[in-house]
């Protein structure tokens, strides 16, 4: 009998524990390795790091679908089928032959790049406006961010009007229509121009570290100039005068000039160049993703440049494009020969290839009818 009492006590204690300390039916989520908008936005660094999200997606401008759709479709670049590789369902071929279809990766990819940027700008504009309403941020600081975001959104729209022409204009974040109607190309054109013209006076005119990689007045003007330059093609009205005026405004200040050495622009530390108006500051540690080198170079080029990764033997230029340059044009470089590596830096890489130790690069997948045999020779 005594034991039954003991057991009953344990039972009751257990039940109380079950119902009270287990908090019976509470299903709230607890977050550990991320934050919510409610516990963020407490200091200036947090505001700027939120703004940064609008810029980080720009890496796709230089190496993603936007680059491929713009360049491989031109006469400057091609992605040929090479042996077993790069046929890829024929989409590179269709890109170059201008016969792409909606299932191909690039047309959809640019949409994601452009509208992803637009959506981020819309969200941040909404966020900063809300923070002003809630009194959590100095309205003046928020205003500067919002103007910067409007100009940046116009830049994303510039890529969209360039690639697609007519697209929906979406500016609100909350309660946005999931199926927005499209706007005509001229409506989109006017929207971009208006946004840029309105924001230019509010943007920073500094050309220094504080605006490097960011939307300052000159970047907005450059974007505006690109709009005017394309106006005849896009909306049927030539606006070259307007373009000229805007460009003069940029140049006449004397803040930009051509580099005495053309190749300074292509150095690893290119930030010293006076030519750049808008730079995407790629960095091995902090901001990777610019992979044109691996896209273009041959597998064997790994030993030429002591690259950590094996290149892909993919993108290249075309013979006609190369030959369109004068023979004494520095950009053609000095090709490597059967006897010696290339001697002059160019923007093209031509001729026989050598390893960093001086041995010639051998292509073990060479076909028997290759005129150079196993030796690797980039022919224009």
């Amino acid at each position, binding site marked *: 009998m005594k034991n039954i009492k003991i057991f009953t006590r344990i039972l009751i204690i257990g039940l109380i524990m079950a119902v009270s300390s287990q908090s019976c039916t509470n299903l709230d989520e607890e*977050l550990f390795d991320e934050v919510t*908008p409610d516990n963020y936005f407490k200091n200036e660094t947090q505001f700027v790091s939120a703004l940064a999200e609008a810029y980080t997606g720009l890496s796709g401008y230089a190496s993603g679908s936007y680059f491929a759709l713009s360049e491989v479709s031109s006469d400057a670049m091609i992605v040929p089928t090479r042996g077993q590789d790069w046929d890829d369902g024929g989409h590179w071929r269709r890109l170059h032959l201008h016969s792409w279809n909606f299932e191909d990766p690039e047309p959809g990819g640019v949409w994601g790049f452009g509208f992803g940027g637009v959506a981020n700008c819309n969200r941040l504009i909404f966020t900063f406006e809300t923070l002003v309403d809630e009194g959590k941020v100095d309205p003046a600081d928020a205003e500067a961010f919002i103007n910067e975001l409007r100009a940046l959104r116009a830049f994303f729209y510039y890529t969209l009007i360039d690639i697609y022409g007519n697209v929906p204009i979406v500016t609100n974040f909350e309660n946005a229509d*999931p199926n927005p109607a499209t706007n005509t190309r001229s409506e989109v054109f006017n929207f971009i121009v208006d946004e840029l013209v309105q924001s230019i006076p509010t943007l920073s005119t500094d050309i220094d570290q504080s605006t490097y990689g960011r939307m300052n007045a000159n970047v907005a003007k450059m974007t505006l100039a690109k709009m005017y330059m394309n106006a005849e093609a896009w909306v049927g009205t030539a606006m070259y005068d307007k373009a000229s005026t805007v460009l003069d405004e940029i140049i006449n200040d004397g803040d930009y000039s051509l580099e005495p050495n053309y190749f300074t622009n292509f150095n690893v530390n290119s930030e010293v160049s006076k030519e750049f108006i808008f730079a995407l500051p790629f960095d091995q540690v902090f901001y990777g993703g610019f992979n044109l080198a691996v896209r273009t170079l041959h597998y064997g080029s790994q030993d030429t440049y002591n690259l950590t990764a094996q290149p892909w033997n993919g993108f290249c230029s075309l013979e006609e494009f190369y030959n369109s340059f004068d023979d004494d044009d520095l950009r053609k470089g000095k090709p490597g020969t059967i006897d010696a590596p290339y001697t002059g830096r160019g923007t093209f890489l031509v001729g026989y290839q050598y390893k960093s130790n001086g041995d010639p690069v051998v292509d073990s997948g060479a076909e028997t009818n290759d005129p150079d045999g196993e030796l690797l020779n980039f022919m224009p």
Partner: protein
Amino acid sequence: MKNKLLQLLIMLSKFVFYGITVQFICIGLLLASDGVSQSIKPISEIDLNLRLENASIKTVFDKIESKTDYHFFYDESIVDTKKLVTLKKGRTTVFDLLLNVSQQSNYKFKQINKVINVNLAQSANDNNNVVIEIVSQDKTVTGTVKEEDTGESIPGANVVVKGTSNGTVTDIDGNYSLSFTGDAAVLVFSFVGYKTVEIEAGNQSVIDVNLAPDITALSEIVVTGYGTQEKKEITSAVASVKEEDFNVGNVQSPEALIQGKVAGLTITKAGGNPNGGYNIRLRGLSTLGDNTSPLIVVDGVIGASLDNVDPNDIESMDVLKDASAAAIYGTRGASGVIIITTKGGKEGQMNVDYNGYVNFESPYRFQPVLSASEWREFSSEVGLGTDFGSSTDWFDEITDNAVSQVHNVAVSGGNSSTTYRMSFNYRDVPGVALNTGFNRINSRINLSHKALNDRLTLTMNLGGTWGTSKYGYDEAFRYATIYNPTAPVRSTDPEFNKYGGYFEQVLFDYYNPVSILEQNTNDGTNKRVNLAIRGAYEIIDNLFFDMFYSLQTESDVRSSYRASTSFWSGRDRNGLARKSYDDRFNQLFESTLRWNGDLSNGTIDAVGGYSYQDFTNEGFRAEGGDFITDEFGYNNLSASQDFNNGLGDLNSYKNTNKLIAFFGRVNFNWNQTWFLSASGRYEGSSRFGENNKWGFFPGISGGVELANFINSASVNNLKFRVSYGETGNNLASSYLSIQRLGPGSNFLVNGEWIPSYGPVSNANPDLRWEVKKETNIGLDYAFFNDKLYGAIDYYTRKTEDLLQNVAVPVPPNLFDRTWTNVGELKNSGLELLINWKAVTNSNFTYTPSLAFTNYLKNEIVSLSDSTRGIQYGIRDIAGMGAPGQNDTPIIRVQEGAPIGQIWGLIYEGIADNGDWIHKDLNEDGEITNADRAVIGNGLPKVEIGFGNTFTFGNWDANLFFRGVFGHDLVNSYRSFYEVPNVIGSYNVIETARDLRGPNGTLLNTSQGKFSSLHVEDASFFSLSNFSIGYSFNLPQGAAFRRIRIYGMGNNLFVATGYKGSDPEVRYADGSNVLAPGIDRRNTWYLTRSFAFGVNLGF
């Protein structure tokens, strides 16, 4: 206070244990001496000195038994042995003693040889009349009663002369001796849980009997959620597989035990990777989310880890197939439930069992490629390829015969109040690939204790696993297949010093596979601990209150190092080390109330309860390269120079979630004829949106035993049943319903890099449960004295509100994918189970069984919701990949079509000029994507498991065949390398030599181009496992209770038309369940194994 109670329990159990042991030994002595002494004296002639005051009748019997050769035999339910008597006479005859007892109680005695039968006196008069009868009998039969399957002796079995109360029980070794009159007597052998056997004594003096477990006649106990039921009462689709029906051979994990045994349950693993997991799927695909595998419940622990259960410790696996059965597990039962019960101790002496075997595993089937001599011949015909002068069999270079050892020791026993079983398992299982395999120690302790007049049952299960694995790199199989057979494995040319002396060539996606496996490491240690404690208290008769607590921790450490000389990976980072720690913890608390009630015409069982479970996952990972030495591998990450220059990578995470539920079930059994069961679970998950956290999942089923209406001796059971149920599916990740911000890539602000902070996903506050609705119609049957029995089931199921990560427009969304509820899946199927006791002679039995599954239909009804802008339509997914086949989708996902449509060009041949000829479906004169069509389906139509069990004398044998039919496989190797010109870079598939036009011109392209040519019917029929064993006859008193030696094997043959290595179904492409049927290039080869082992019982 708690301690005192525990002490008391231990003391109590100790005495009971001693008591029983002493009694067993006495009986044993008594009976053992029977054969020696032939003279039987009547009780009136034996004197005894016995004085007892207020002693129980039991004590009297014990005293008499201990001092004489007599043995009392009685039915405990009739004779109250606690009744007290006083014997004061001192020295007198046994006859007088018993007469005295008889006068003080109400019992009469009858001596038959040495056995004294005790029974109730018919009336008061009886007492004075025939109190004690002495019958001398002229015949004695002896023998042993054994368990049919294991050959173990059965102590305590009843042996009775039919129609009399003359009988005895077997001793501790299963021996008995019984005397009676006349040859016409029939002996009845019986034991609880076993089938009763009747044998005519005739003139035999020794009768040995094997008792078979009484499980076939639907009396088998089936474990359902939160309870058990007899098979005959079950009205939903439930399958139970007991230990004796498990698969044998190279079984390293629990799921392999029941592969092919349960109709509707497919368990697959392609290739022989010992560290590879199984893909388990019940009744096809019913969700696109994370939980495509059934929920695992081990001894009540919901969501338990299969890694922590050694196959040797499993007693039964019960599969809840339909939604009405699984509804009691509500939210996680949508893909079915597998309930595993581990072995416990049994009342009786301590048993020690050892089972060990040595397994020899070798590669069985390869993807056929050219040998060095064939390569040279074909290379010269094609005019491509470099001959490096060696002859290398790359398959042979990366594999080895793997010899593994498995040892299991279990100690079990107990008394009427406490039972225990402790096991220790050791597995050393190398893989056939170089430097792969695992080593695992697992231990389990199961304790059960009854107290407080058997009203309280306490059980504890503690299981732990410590394992180390060498995972190797699956890529080695891809490169071994395509590596040039004229290339050497190693080279002394200084050119190759930078590769560690391994031969390498600079080509796309082409690396020396031996170098990959020998230079790099990829190791893991895995720990699992599981503790479960249950207290069940019978508050009043038949009303039980249960409290259950369990905790489970899983901890994984993964470490890899890629050497600075490894060309495949490692050289690019000058050595690369990775280390990660992942920890998963969950605890479950449940309390339930159970009631078993008797109605005048039947029974009613009810259970209801509360369940709380929380989960915590956390982990840490570091990766860094650039080492000055490869010597210490992954063990000293601070030596990585990447951490000095910012290229090292670190991350950590933590997340939690909770499930809370209220559940209940009622079962009715009316007259053993009508059955009804209803259950429900109201369950909430923290992962869903604020207003959608809770869901209700009901199940109802009913059945009728038609055999009770058909008065035919040949129909033993014919139970028709119908069920309907709903089960839910939880989200795969936490926090998807709330808006979160996290660090992203970096941004340069005033010359300094800071991380950007932005949303991590589209928040969806409307997320709610995915619901599966299922109807099942079934029939359980048993005919001809239970010789032919089984079940037939038809099911149809529909899953609504599928949880999916769907494409959504941006804007308004921030990301182009959102987790949401959208769409519907449907499928149906037919399942058939047949067991047949074909031959049941006493020295030869043959029992075939067949599990047959026909997947009738699966359909993606919808994946869209136009009101929310979600349009799926048609998508082509699962790209073939590099080289040259990026943007070449293989699978078409289409609303209104079945899952698993393989989509591509239709191959028609090779033209005279060597060009491909593909079918121009739209007749536009061009071969484009528009010419693609459905060219196969990756999901099977029919699956069969065909078991054959034999016993002949001391021999036993088992053959298990498994067949899967109607599924296609995309042979990726052929799509890439069955191209003659590929010989310029890689080895080619041997059939590349046959790709010729009508005039003999070889295919002239060097591009692999996926088409129907590479889609193969992968139906197969295999001898999945077999065993043959011999049990020795052991003399009485031998050191061993049991010795059985056996040999077994797996994949003795696989009959298939598939040209690749393993025709097994690929249920998912990686984790993509919408893309089944693709045999990717990194799959391990199919292996075959043989094992030799021994079972010992002490």
